[in-house]
């Protein structure tokens, strides 16, 4: 009865679920639910950021050595890719809102491609780490082959297992972030197909907005990860980065 009373007001007879008074209340409720979920996500990543802060505080010089093994160029490019994917996602939400099916599909597709590119570059970085033996617990043989660097560390009183701690945290943080990217790519792909079939541009655009919130949060996590992981040793634009 309630929804019937309000249906003429919001013009969405059938789209407002029966427990809500009107479209506006439904939209706010869905947004609020997603933000609560995002709060739990912030807490989950927050634990890792805390572990990072604590160990960096204890082992700052070793963390700088660890960071110098990463390729800041790839990190910068990936940051650009992810920021750009956030722009295309924001455009997707906009186009869902104004009911432009073709542009919505294009924006979602572009977001998917950019997200996949990010993961591809990340996979290349991990592969390089594996090849030189910088993955703790999997292949940690870097210092077996670089005795001179081990000696340099000893002179500066830096323990190799403290450098290892940097990489443990590096793989936990970028790994959890990558899991979120993979889940995001799955949903973006599914939504692209649904959008192609005409869903979301029939007035029910909010699922795209909710997906956008998730995508932007994953972007936010990377915005913090990039300077904390890649740039702590200072970067040197005229030397080649990486290993």
């Amino acid at each position, binding site marked *: 009865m309630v929804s019937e009373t309000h249906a003429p007001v919001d013009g969405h007879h059938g789209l407002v679920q029966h427990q809500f008074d009107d479209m*506006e209340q439904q939209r*706010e409720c869905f947004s609020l639910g997603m933000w609560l979920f995002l709060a739990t996500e912030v*807490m989950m990543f927050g634990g890792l950021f805390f572990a990072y802060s604590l160990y960096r*505080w204890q082992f700052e010089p070793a963390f700088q050595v660890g960071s110098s093994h990463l390729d*800041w160029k790839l990190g910068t490019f990936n940051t650009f890719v992810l920021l750009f994917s956030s*722009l295309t996602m*924001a455009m997707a939400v906009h186009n869902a809102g104004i009911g432009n099916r073709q542009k919505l599909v294009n924006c979602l597709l572009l977001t998917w491609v950019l997200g996949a590119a990010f993961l591809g570059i990340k996979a290349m970085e991990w592969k390089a780490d594996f090849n030189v033996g910088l993955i703790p617990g999997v292949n940690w043989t870097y210092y077996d082959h670089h005795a001179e660097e081990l000696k340099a560390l000893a002179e500066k009183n830096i323990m190799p297992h403290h450098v290892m701690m940097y990489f443990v945290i590096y793989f936990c943080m970028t790994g959890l972030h990558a899991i979120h990217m993979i889940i995001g790519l799955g949903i973006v792909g599914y939504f692209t197909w649904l959008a192609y079939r005409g869903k979301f541009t*029939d007035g029910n655009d909010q699922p795209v907005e909710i997906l956008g919130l998730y995508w932007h949060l994953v972007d936010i996590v990377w915005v913090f990860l990039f300077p904390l992981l890649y740039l702590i040793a200072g*970067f040197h*634009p005229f030397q080649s980065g990486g290993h």
Partner: protein
Amino acid sequence: MAKRAATTGKAAPAVAASTHGHGHGHGNSEGHGGHHGISPATYWKVFAGLIALLILTLFVAMFDLGPLNVAVAMIVAVAKVGLILTFFMHLKISTKLVRFCSLAAFFWLAILFVLTLSDYASRGWLPQSGK
């Protein structure tokens, strides 16, 4: 529709036309244009801002400022996140309840950091046996 167009500024024609197109009513949200209130032009400007801040991060990392490096990097990161939250994540046009809830996440994070770090930082301050 005319009243809407007058209140939403630059993006008004597109928003008004589209709103007319599929008939979204926004009840009392007229003042800020509801969930379509941020225009693509604004998104592009925000993106340009994010890239400028990324370049700033790199620029600052080129210099050895001691402990200031991480402070500047975090300030720039917070500025970027502020842009993403405000515009891409629509907090600018969200209700007060949603804004409050989004702040709660960072409030809990602050509790985690402040309480736990104050423990670690203050160890050994008191001359107790067992420490």
